């Protein structure tokens, strides 16, 4: 089974990188782009067949390492 983890900045946390990306897109002729938020995508290969167990384990991974919950949120998607 694969787990796909998205790590994103919490609302209200300044994202200067997202801002810079937004400015660049505007300059490149995409004026329709407003606020941009940048995050991380992490794909994990898991030796686990039980979805409930897998979800619980990946949650723990997120809390311990993959996300810094002071500033980041995470979401988990299980595939296969």
């Amino acid at each position, binding site marked *: 089974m694969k787990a796909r983890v998205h790590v994103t900045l919490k609302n209200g946390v*300044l994202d*200067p*990188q997202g801002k*810079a990306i937004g400015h660049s897109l505007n300059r490149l002729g995409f004026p329709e782009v407003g606020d941009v938020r940048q995050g991380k995508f992490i794909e994990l290969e898991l030796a686990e067949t039980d979805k409930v167990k897998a979800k619980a384990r990946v949650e723990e991974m997120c809390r*311990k*390492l*993959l996300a*810094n919950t*002071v*500033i980041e949120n995470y979401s988990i998607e299980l595939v296969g």
Partner: protein
Amino acid sequence: MKAAVLVFPGSNREGDVAQAIELVTGRRPQMVWHGDGDFEKVDLIVVPGGFSYGDYLRCGAMAAQSPVMAEVKKRAAQGVPVLGICNGFQIVTEAGLLPGTLMRNSHLKFVCADVHLRVETSQSLFTNRYQAGQVIKVPVAHAEGNYFADADTMKRLEDRGQIAFRYCGPDGSIIDGRGNPNGSSSNIAGVFNDTKTVLGLMPHPENAVEPMFGGTDGKALFEGMVEALS
């Protein structure tokens, strides 16, 4: 004062801080490799600057989970003083020894410059050789030094006097974010834990201990620790 300096793959200021400690104590600190789960009893643990684990995932995130940090967390809980400088500050926050986190500089650039710091308190084992309100000049060198904590945490830090240093202008002023090199909340350059036995700061006091290298304002930090811990 017996000190240990941790070394991670990618640390690069461990030699500088070891020299600063040797300068004030006359003895070389013990260098401790990140894979070592145990090391000799010491009076002070220093987590030095650098780019531990290449800053992968988040600055300090990998190092915070290393075997040596598990031991450091245990000792910090028993009251052994811990000093985290630059990447070391990022590591100790990721390890949960200090509140908040260090984010990318607001202007997205690496900043390498001398900055002015206002010492916020002399009431700690790290800052007892300074006066509260004193302005000192030390260098910074980082891309992720933008201190952030939620509003409740910020209030707690202020109320309990856990802010050690703030970036400021040459006159000590912090109005309009004066002297702030990275966008840090409330100009914060360094914070204590609630018992003031852990200090994390982005600037490099270890690089301001000899006149030949542009100033000696950082030396009092090391002298203060020697006085408190010997």
